[in-house]
């Protein structure tokens, strides 16, 4: 039995780990539109490959499960086999020894439950459902379906104006998105199979930095159709909808409650992330299409009601956003030095910069708004800014880059502390936030994140003068209550953005989805515009004919991704100036050359293979 001890073969494990990273990337780059059963069987096969071979249910049972699933995938299974397969998976789950076996079987059961229609379709029709076919990942994942390979190619050809116009075919906010888009397009970028996703937002930023979008002439408007549409809310969703409707030749009136257009892009996102002058470029450009009347300071319910809108206009698009900051009604929450983050950012958006010099600020919450609030507080001269977060850092909903940026700028992150009480002194001034330490627990079925609960620990007080709560936003939906409001307070539409039982009334953006991203709001506005056009009895086509450069071959050698750098934290925190640097020409050209042009290669050239 005696064997000389040996060092582990580190080179080998390095190579294997490197392969697993590649494997992981392949999984992450799973193209949209793949048959989900083929993905499930790939998972099962991976699970089976991990068996140690000891226990019968895992070592031999998963093999049988895979065979059965293969039959379903191949369309050669019947309902008996389906039932057998369920039983087999259940039995493996019940009898396997370790997670390699039972988790594999559990996932099979969960997948069958979640994708039951697909499984049954395979059995009944011996084929995949009609919508199953591989798409171009960036375009498909972009809520506005922007022709991303196209504009990357145009940037690569230094045709920046064409690139901007190609973007504007689907998204009238090239500049805003160049600064703040959460880039769903990069999620499954096929380039991940080789190295990593193309820096698509960075390229877009490069393009709008070359020519301001309001200098590039806006595509021409169609001849007037005579139809008149009201858009309620001049945020990204409303403006997008208005822009496309106007382009089609319809007349649009925008009702905006605040004094300026832009919605959360203006009043929610601080200047250091999206400078107002750059936002104005987008708005100027899109209004330049013509046929859009803007009525600011016009909240619905004062001068005009929703009912009147419905009567006076041929169609109505509601895009009122989620404007109201939520607060937690803990003790003393109504103190003047306690406010929602939304209120604070709104004030700054109006150009009213508070002076927090010498003040200790606590921000409650772990989302992007909390980061915006905390980083703004730093810029307003706060002596200290502390983030009190109930969950673990990994479970925070804010983007990791935002969390990192906040920490760099001096924000103190205190995770696993839930607010329980605000302590005030005899003068009524806030002196501290009393928190309850938390413990992480079982996973929540809905969020997919571990839940937290009060830990068996002493409360902890964070001394402070000012408290902002960034725990979510609510929709001011009272004026539109007649259209029906969900328990979450959102307006309810079908997938075409139409509101049920109210022909001609459409809604989209944060007021339907709940607080979300700019690009989702833009996507909803675009969909709504097309459906309003259809509703009005038209089917307008409005595309420019921008010629996209041809490609000869892919650049396949492995290259690092060009990431955008930021200004130093020391410099950043002094002002609300933009923090992010732009790409150089050299960087942009390298990044462009890496695009695999999925619009030309692979499924892109097939019918239905783009979107």
């Amino acid at each position, binding site marked *: 039995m005696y064997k000389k001890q040996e060092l582990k073969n580190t080179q080998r494990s390095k190579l294997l780990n490197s392969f697993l990273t590649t494997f992981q990337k392949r999984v992450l780059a799973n193209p949209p539109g793949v048959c989900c059963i083929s993905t499930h069987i790939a998972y099962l096969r991976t699970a089976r490959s991990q068996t140690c071979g000891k226990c019968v249910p895992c070592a031999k049972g998963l093999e049988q499960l895979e065979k059965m699933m293969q039959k379903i995938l191949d369309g050669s299974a019947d309902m008996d086999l389906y039932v057998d397969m369920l039983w087999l998976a259940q*039995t493996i789950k019940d009898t396997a020894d370790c997670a390699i076996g*039972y988790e594999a079987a559990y996932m099979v059961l969960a997948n069958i439950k979640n994708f039951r229609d697909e499984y049954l379709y395979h059995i009944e029709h011996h084929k995949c459902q009609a919508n199953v076919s591989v798409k171009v990942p960036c375009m498909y994942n972009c809520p506005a379906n922007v022709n991303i390979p196209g504009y990357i190619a145009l940037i690569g050809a230094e045709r920046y104006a064409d690139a901007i116009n190609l973007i504007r075919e689907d998204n009238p906010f090239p500049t805003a998105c160049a600064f703040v888009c959460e880039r769903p397009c990069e999620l499954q970028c096929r380039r991940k199979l080789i190295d990593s996703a193309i820096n698509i937002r960075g390229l877009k930023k490069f393009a709008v930095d070359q020519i301001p979008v309001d200098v590039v002439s806006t595509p021409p408007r169609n001849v007037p159709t005579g139809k008149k549409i009201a858009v309620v809310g001049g945020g990204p969703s409303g403006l997008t909808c208005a822009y496309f409707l106007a382009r089609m030749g319809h007349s649009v009136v925008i009702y905006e409650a605040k004094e300026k257009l832009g919605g959360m892009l203006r009043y929610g996102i601080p200047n250091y992330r999206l400078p107002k002058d750059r936002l104005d470029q987008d708005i100027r450009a899109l209004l330049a299409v013509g046929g859009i009347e803007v009525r600011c300071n016009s909240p619905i319910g004062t001068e005009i009601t929703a009912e009147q809108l419905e009567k006076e206009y041929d169609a109505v698009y509601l895009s009122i956003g989620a404007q109201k900051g939520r607060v937690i009604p803990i003790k003393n929450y109504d103190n003047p030095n306690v406010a929602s983050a939304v209120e604070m950012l709104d004030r700054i958006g109006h150009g009213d910069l508070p002076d927090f010099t010498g003040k200790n600020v606590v921000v409650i919450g772990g989302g992007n708004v909390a980061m915006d609030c905390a980083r703004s507080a730093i810029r307003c001269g706060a002596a200290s800014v502390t983030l009190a977060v109930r969950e673990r850092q990994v479970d925070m909903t804010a983007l990791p880059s935002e969390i990192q940026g906040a920490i760099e700028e001096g924000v103190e992150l205190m995770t696993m502390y839930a607010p329980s009480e605000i302590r005030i002194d005899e003068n009524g001034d806030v002196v501290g936030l009393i928190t309850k330490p938390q413990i992480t627990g079982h996973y929540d079925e809905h969020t997919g994140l571990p839940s937290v609960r009060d830990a068996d620990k002493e409360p902890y007080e964070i001394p402070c003068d000012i408290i902002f709560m960034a725990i979510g936003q609510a929709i001011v939906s009272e004026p539109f209550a007649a259209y029906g409001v969900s328990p979450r307070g959102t307006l309810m539409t079908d997938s075409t953005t139409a509101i049920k039982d109210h022909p001609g009334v459409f809604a989209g953006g944060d007021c339907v989805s709940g607080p979300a991203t700019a690009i989702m709001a833009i996507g909803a506005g675009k969909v709504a515009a097309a459906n309003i056009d259809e509703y009005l009895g038209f089917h307008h086509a409005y595309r420019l004919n921008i010629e996209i450069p041809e490609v000869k071959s892919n650049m396949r050698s492995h290259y690092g991704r060009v990431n955008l750098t930021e200004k130093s934290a020391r410099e950043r925190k002094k002002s609300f100036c933009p923090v992010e640097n732009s790409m150089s020409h050299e960087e942009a050209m390298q990044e462009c050359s890496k695009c695999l042009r999925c619009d030309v290669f692979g499924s892109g050239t097939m019918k239905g293979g783009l979107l």
Partner: protein
Amino acid sequence: MAEKVKITINGHEYEAEKDQTILEVARANGIYIPTLCYLKNVNEIGACRMCVVEIEGHSHLFPSCNTKVWEGMAVRTDSEKVKLSRQFVLQLMLAHHTVRCLSCSKSGDCDLQKLAVELELPTVEANPYEADTAKLPARTDNPFLAYYPELCIGCQRCVSVCSRRVGNGVLNASKIGTRTYIEAPFGPDWKNTDCELCGNCASVCPTGALVAKNMGKYQTGNVNRVLTTCPHCATGCQFYLMVKDNTIVDVHPADGPSNKGLLCVKGRFGSFNFVHSPDRLRHPLIKNRETGKFEQATWDEALNLIAEKFGKIKSEYGADALAGFACSRAPNEDCYMLQKMVRCAFGTNNVDNCARVCHSATVAGLAMTLGSGAMTNPIADITEDVDLILLVGSNPEEAHPVIGMQIRQAVSKGTHLIVVDPRKIRLSREADIHIRLKPGTNVAFANGMINIIISEGLADEKFISERTEGFEALKEMVKDYTPEKVAEICHIDADQLREAARMYATAKKAPIIYCLGVTEHSSGTEGVMSLSNLAMVVGKLGRSGCGVNPLRGQNNVQGACDMGALPGDFPGYQKVTNESVVEKFEKAWNVKLSRKPGLHATDVFPAAVRKEVRGLFIFGEDPVVSDPDQGHVIKALESLDFLVVCDLFKTRTAEYADVILPGTSYAEKEGTFSNTERRVQRVRKAVTVEGEMRLDTDIFTDLMNRMGYPQPYLRADEIMDEIASLTPSFGGISHKRLDAGESLQWPCPDKNHPGTPILHVGKFTRGLGLLRPIPYRASQELPDDEYPFILMTGRILYHYNAMAMTGRTKGLVEKAGASFIEVNTEDAARLGIAEGDRVKLSSRRGSIVTTARVGDRVSVGETWMPFHFADGFANVLTNAALDEYARIPEYKVCAIKMEKAAE
């Protein structure tokens, strides 16, 4: 006491111990749960999931074999869900198992088959699962074992047995993709693997995947299983002889107290071919003095001739001109009758057995110091739950393989090991310390240990003062044996010796286990006594996990000594010099007995040369091969007036006989063997072999009667009753008790006595333990300019002594069939000898040619040879220098020279 918990199984409440598994509780209460991969304490890996049960409050099932019970647990073993799960795993296994029962040697004894019936599985065709048949090749080159991957269910019983019980670990599970199979070393390269061919893997395989090839000769249902005791070493392994049509076709291990279900290659595969060997002696043979050829004779002719010749010698030269050697391989009853024949019919105490050349030093030495010359503690007691083993001059992995396996298990579980041996034996690789002392310096080593123990205050003074005598003299004597001086004598490191002494002295439970490396010296008895000194100084005697434990050599060498086949002892070590003892035996045997201690076997040969001994009866021994200085032995045999050999085969010794008598083997008779731990175990008749062979006890009875001593024929059980009536330590032992399932270790003075596992508890047999100062003396023949190498001799795993038994199993000869000598690399380089070269070896007594094995198993200036092989008998070279007390020869040290042999 373990904490008790209450659980319910199928609605009934049971009390269980907290660390029990569900399966254990169920079995203890007669509730059946099927298992497949489970082997208690060996394979509890929960692989097959056959034993799953439902536990209330849990949606998934639990394997009962490795789930411990908890308070309030409610188990269901019989639900529909459980039954379906069991069917499911069986069907999955069958999908990978080629169902070819018609041609499978395990058919009828296969767990899969049994469970398929039990679980009411539909036909093979109805199995919903199928698998692509793996194209793995069968491995069948090994002479004894074969592996058929298409039958393997991957349960890993074999792997676990090999690594956790055998401790060899050559079997490994391997994977092809997600399929598990066994990397069985039975392919074309089998000879060059570390596989020891023990076959314990095959004994536990639930299917026909890993099988002993012998199993192909029969079906389990059609054979008789005869429980008996292994005829090789003194471990006393219990096994079944599988008998088909009066022929032994296989051996299956039994769960005996010393082997616990394990066997070694000799027991498993080398225990029965010789019984049916075509060259068995089948008729008495008388040598034609004129032609020198043996001629077939009738029993009457042969026995009459012996009676006449021995009678003549006795009347002309006196009874002491006759001598008889008993057989250490033969049962107690045979040995008893032989010594009775020599004492009553020959009229002399010239009776001995081959313990003389292995452990006579133990018998003499421990009798002097402790009062009983036997292993003090049982095997299990010194290999389970001990802190340290001090292994001196013993290579149990080869000479006592099943004990070796148990030591390996102990070491792998954390028992410390100190190996004291000149050679790098395999166990030394796993030892904390290997004291690689110079051959023949055991006494100095032990004295050095005692010196350190006393000077560092590690002695057990209470034990010494209460239970021993002679300490002051010992203390005075060991003063000279400083670690530095001992290091110089033994060629070892003084610090290593200090560490060993400290480890041994401070360990709570630490047995000394020793073997022939201690005894087979001209100072053998002194070496034994030195070890007993060592154990007594630290109080490690008379309690569990300690003691002085000689591993006796042959299957019944303990018994042959116990039965009085010794020149100075009647059965049970009752001395021939004790008048009242002699009177007791005279009364019982109704004959006048000699009061003069007889000659030791090793003294008989010189006496024969001097014509003092003229007639010799050798029962089952082959001294020409096994005794030192072969030339001298042959000269002695040729000097005899009349030599009778009673044996199974015409051995080298038999060539010199005047009459050869065909005896019977252990498989053809009833009786008992006493193993190394004094355990008396049954030997049972399994077959009758064709021929005129007779029971040896009947042969002796006939001869006694013909020589004028009236002795009625007795059955073996009747002989044991006579032994019990005359031998206090055997007073309670009878075949009846053993057949009823009792396992008895002597002393067992009366019918109700449970036997004595550990000797000297509370009091030494001798009264006070004797600490006897033993100064170191050098071996008698040391290397010099002419004969510069020390030669040690020993055994290898695959053969036993003169190979009368193992040499008749083809596979064993195939694995190891030729003589060799181990030479150190440096010496070999100096002499220009390479691995595999033929070398000529010479001592002052003779020369042989053998093959060199070059390496570092022996130190520079030392060599080692097995003594089994006829193509180069080591005993041509060895020195018959005898120990003063026990007359044991110095097999372990003689001086030789070595040169490259001419082609």
